[in-house]
């Protein structure tokens, strides 16, 4: 590995209002879930130290307001992102349908240098609700969409129960790391993070 190293990895969480962005972030960083998170106004972030191959990274996870009306703020917050997490609620078709809007909006506002290969990760959240009985977006449908957008890694999560959250964020971190490395060093594809076994997910392509 070359010696110039990034230590900060910036991750943006996007998705419709109420899909669980704040909860996912808090479950991952603080291992906590609360029913009383307020609607996010503006933006906030949490950080978490992650380690890969004896190297420490700070994962900076940005949580943003989900209402469409605040999308224009993105310009200030999205720039410099290394990975974008798109979240929908498996019990809400609209939140799934909107993934495409969020993805495109992100690419426009963050204008990454290589939009074709910018890493996204999709999370279908709230799989715990009603024992899965109120679910309206099938895993198959979600995976098909992810495949059509360049094999976006996909996870089904429950921020409330802590299901798959750790795995999802590990994948997110690895993908972020990849972008970061590619930006600063000319040698891509040199990161070998091993293949982790992840239940209910295709896992990371990295």
């Amino acid at each position, binding site marked *: 590995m070359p010696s110039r190293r990034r230590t900060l990895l910036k991750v943006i969480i996007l998705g419709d209002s109420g899909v669980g962005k704040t909860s996912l972030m808090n479950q991952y960083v603080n291992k906590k879930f609360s029913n009383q998170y307020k609607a996010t106004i*503006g933006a906030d972030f949490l950080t978490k130290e992650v380690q890969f191959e004896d190297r420490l990274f700070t994962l900076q996870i940005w949580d943003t307001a989900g209402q469409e009306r605040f999308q224009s703020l993105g310009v200030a917050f999205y720039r410099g992102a290394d990975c974008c997490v798109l979240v929908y609620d498996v019990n809400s078709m609209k939140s799934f349908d909107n993934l495409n809007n969020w993805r495109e909006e992100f690419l426009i506002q963050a204008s990454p240098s290589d939009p074709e290969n910018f890493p996204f990760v999709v999370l279908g959240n709230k799989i715990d609700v009603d024992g899965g009985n109120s679910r309206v977006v099938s895993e198959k449908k979600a995976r098909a969409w992810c495949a059509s957008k360049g094999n976006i890694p996909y996870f089904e999560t429950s921020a409330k129960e802590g299901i798959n959250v750790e795995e999802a964020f590990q994948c997110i971190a690895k993908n972020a790391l990849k972008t970061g490395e590619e930006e600063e060093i000319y040698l891509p594809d040199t990161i070998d993070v091993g293949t982790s076994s992840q239940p209910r997910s295709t896992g990371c392509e990295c």
Partner: protein
Amino acid sequence: MQETELYDLSDDADYAASQQQQGSASMMRSDSSKRSSSSEPEGAEVVYTKDNVTIHPTQFASERISGRLKLIKQGSSLFMTWFPYKGQSSSARLSEKDMNLYTIRAVPFTEVRSIRRHTPALGWQYIIVVLSSGLAFPPLYFYNGGVREFLATIKQHVFLMRSAEDANVFLVNDLQNPLQRTLSSLELPRAVVAGLPSAPQSLVESPSQEHLKAVGEFHGESSSTFQYGGRQRQKGHDPTRDISIQVLEKFSLVTKFARETSQLFRETHSNGYGSFERKRNSQSAIDYTQKEADPAKKVPNQSFVPSDPLEKKPNIEHNHDEETSALVETFELIDCKEFDKLSLVWGKPRQPPLGSEEWATFLDSEGRVVDAKALRKRIFYGGVEHKLRREVWSFLLGYNTYESTDAEREYQRSVKKKEYEMIKHQWQSISPEQAKRFTKFRERKGLIEKDVVRTDRSLPFYDGDDNPHVNLLHDILLTYSFYNFDLGYCQGMSDLLSPILFVMEDESESFWCFVALMERLGPNFNRDQSGMHSQLFAISKLVELLDLPLHNYFKQNDCLNYFFCFRWILIQFKREFEYEMIMRLWEVLWTHYLSEHLHLYVCVAILKRHRSKIMGEQMDFDTLLKFINELSGHIDLDAILRDAEALCICAGENGAACIPPGTPPSLPVDNGSLYPQPDEVL
């Protein structure tokens, strides 16, 4: 030569319309005799047209004047025109005459000195055109965008180059006549004169950078501060000189003011500090100015931050023994002579909240508020006791007028209740089948449902399953989204409604108080974010005025968009204080006693309190945002209100000039009484 002869515009509807009104009176530009007359009538060609280019003559959104901007080429000359749309005045206060006052009639570019563009990330782009006479037109807001195209078109026809000093200033014909340029530079105040260019630069460059540039420069703004009173231009026979002097005066005022305020703050930092500490304080502040004057004497510690009286003092750390003796003398002189005056300027001690007995003294026998201003002042300094809020808030919010009697208000309550029920019934009567085909309704309802269940649920008033108050929040917000369908529902509204419902405890009354609040804060939720942008912009101007080192720090660290204040502004600090405190803050803000925009001074006060930490720890944008978010729950309201009051008083007119027209919360009319009800029922 008259402009009308410059080219044939008889087929131009706008032009013809304005001609009818014009007469000989109210020609905006009385210096038209100076105009060159080199062109022939034929051969005029419109090379650029842009609709919905708008002037904001006052701060009231209802008084904007939209029109059409054109560039017209005739022979080798390029002209700019802007005509207001006819019969479009949205307010009775704007007469046709007023509108014509702003008309720009064929200004040749030989008379244009520079164009400053503002391309905020949020809100409308606008330009300020400065003439070589030193006059400038009011900002022209491009509601449909197109500033870049406008400049590019000009560049095709006249010599245009970017100012070396400021990438957003474009100099017109700057090299044509070096001597004239020098002369006019001498006459013009610094604020208007753009820097001399070093080399021509391409117009269309680094769009992304421009895009991110959120706020303009103060200097450009100051040139616009004297523009809004367009009428003044008519009377001067030598406008160049008059305006120059005017601006120079303004400028020296600002400088003088800045000096005085910093002095004031240093010397009056007595509240809460003993006189000994006060001395130290003033020393360290003066110490700083000396260091600044002598860059060689830089402090080795990079993160040294000059102190400011408003900031939090962790302890008394510095000891500048060498300067002490000389400075104490100066200080004591000021201290003795100025103390009384200065303590007036400093934020007054907060008072206990207004209680029932005192409240009764404000009312006449029929329940009218006799002296509204005295009441507002009283509440400004102490708030009101909780049990009185229900009654008092409806006045402060403008739902009830101060002149109304008890009987009238009671009658209004019943009328308004019916009206509320009627609007509420509109959405209640939507059948499931209808809702299936009514996406907008479903979406709004869904958003509201998601938000009310996460609004202040830790409060006993809103906690527990199936809480009836949560349902009321839902019903009121959904009804509001029908009452104001254009604005609809937006996140943050539930935060604004929650304390109102808590206080009013009545569905209909809460609704109408919320309506009144949204009359002021509605623009916060505009789709184009223009309301938010103008407030963040104003904060940046106020910080520049009131704390230049902090402003420079933000500038260097790419923080001038002030997005870290977004949450503060959007929901009036709702997330930053405990519930009781937020009610106190809101009633103080709603008095509009010192300024409608006290909340902006509150922002500046909080930032100033933490300036040394912000600068000392070299916070970047991310860290700053995090820091600000985490201040939630740790802000001393009374202290901040005193600071804000002091800042507001000290900033005075200069502060007001920092706040662009149309900045929320704007009141519809300001005629001495607070705000007459537009739909008074009695």
